[in-house]
């Protein structure tokens, strides 16, 4: 399984290098020199690695004595979901709403106590509002959903 993933990953990189060299073929000399100098050796090395990965030993999984592989995968998928969900939440609700909401939801889902969940959510909001909004004056996006609803 791990070997298959690595072969696919390196093969993808080989395609990227090949495409980069192909794209550069019609550019002016001073524009294409560097891309070609990187893409052609990159393609050669990636092809060597594809063969080596396909023939050699599978890459070793990071040592983890504390978790079964299935549980590790399940928790990895969970946190990937939380990160993706946070991105969607920021897009729809903006940082000022999504950050405390996301923090609170994550902590409660992880069975943290109500008090610590609320406290950390409030601290996160205070950090965004205090440092980024008030001190650094970063223009935080209002959130598409809130904008559509006319709330912000």
């Amino acid at each position: 399984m791990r070997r298959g993933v690595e072969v696919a990953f390196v093969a993808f990189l080989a395609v990227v290098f090949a495409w980069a060299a192909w794209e550069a073929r019609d550019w002016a000399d001073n524009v294409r020199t560097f891309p070609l100098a990187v893409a052609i050796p990159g393609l050669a090395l990636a092809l060597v690695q594809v063969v080596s990965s396909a023939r050699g030993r599978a890459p070793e999984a990071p040592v983890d004595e504390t978790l079964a592989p299935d549980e590790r995968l399940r928790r990895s998928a969970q946190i990937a979901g939380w990160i993706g969900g946070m991105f969607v939440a920021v897009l729809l609700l903006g940082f000022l709403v999504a950050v405390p909401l996301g923090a609170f939801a994550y902590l409660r889902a992880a069975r943290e106590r109500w008090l610590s969940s609320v406290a950390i959510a409030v601290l996160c909001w205070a950090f965004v509002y205090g440092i980024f909004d008030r001190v650094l004056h970063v223009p935080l996006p209002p959130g598409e959903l809130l904008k559509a609803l006319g709330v912000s």
Partner: protein
Amino acid sequence: MFEALIAGLGQILAWPAIGLMFVGIAAGFVVGILPGIGGATALALMLPFIFHMKPPEAFAFLLGMASVLAMTGEITSILFGVPGEPVTAATIVDGHTMAKQGEAGRALGAALFGAFVGAVVGSLSLMLTIPIIQPFLRSFGSPEFLMFAVVGIAFVSSLTGSSPVKGFIAAGLGLLLSMIGQSPGTATLRYVFGQLYLWEGIRIVPAVLGLFAIPELVDLAVHRTSIARRDVGALGGLRQGFADVLQHRWLALRCSVIGIVTGVAPGIGGNGAQWIAYGHAVQSADDPTRFGRGAVEGVIAPAIASAGERTSALIPTVAFGIPGNVSTAVLLGAFIIQGLVPGKDMLTKDLAITFGMAWTMIIANVIAIAVILLLAKQLVAITRIRGTLLVPPIILLVFLGSYAERNTMFDVVVMLVFGALGVLMVELGWPRAPLILGLVLGGVIENYLNLSVARYELEWTLRPLVAAMILLSAGVALSPYVQAARRRARRAAT
């Protein structure tokens, strides 16, 4: 030179730089004592905060934090046998054993004072090296600087990770990603897929945050544990540990030299430095059998070497743009953000900033050791924080950090893409430092390449130093294979 030395100190002691250094030190304490968040990740998380700072302020903040990160990492290594930082792992062997024997305070004192000595000697080496390097740098042209960058990539690619080929492919990918956007000088668009956003290229901050912070965030969320599984016990004996360092002053000096040499030689890093120093301490001891059973020299040696390595790694970074370790590779990103070009400028017109960096590391270490002496017990309490409680604040920093440079959600998307790439690379055992180095140095390399070709055509490759560095790069790239072949031959012979 002397004026720049004083000006550097003045810049660091001026407001707000000194205040920002204290903020960096405070952040370094917290991050250093928490396991899992490595020095490179911590620096990456702090990059977004330096956009509004001037260079002396930015480096006071970042280096103040970096200076104390590993020093505080020694605390968890000794008390719980869990390295707060990967570069403090060797301290566990004897330090944690001492803690279990009721000598936690003595081990801590030896490690912290040792780290302080290593950092000060490393900083002084940075200051003293500048007058030696400066005349050489003045005689270098664009071909030499091009080759310094190439040598740096060759070192980092072949020496980090398990396979040099993987390292070079990662570096090639980084270089390729650095070409996205308008080509320098001509404004021809390359690899932009018709996206206006990509015209300005891929920014360093979202890439670094994704590549380093996301994999650690995933790891933290997956394991969900705090590290404080045991009682700390008494922390007396700190002063005895200080005295141990003074008593073993020659070992301390030799390990400082090991730290400096490994810091200047790119690619070895603090991980290598600590174990080389530990090995040296065992080898040079009267009774090597004491090691692993609580020998204080086994704590002093790695602590000094890894601190010396951290500070002296700035020498090749500042002088040649070649990072000595992964953290300085991230620090190169800070140079770019601040509009500073490593090399000649850092040793001439920006010399005060360079000296300011060395001063920062000395001052930060003095403050760190004082604070640790006062607050050792309270700092230990931080280790009881559960991993789940840290996940939301880190997600927040990663998202806001990516967004805040250009105020666009596209940068957050870039961070997520690099995050997925980072997780995949960690899972498959691919080194990430060459990729980020390629991304950071790509623009510089292309500039020097164009200048070299325009001025000397292909003859630039025949300049003596350039030719030597081409050979050096090739030697570095091939060395792992030569070593492997030798090992095979030796095994076949036996």
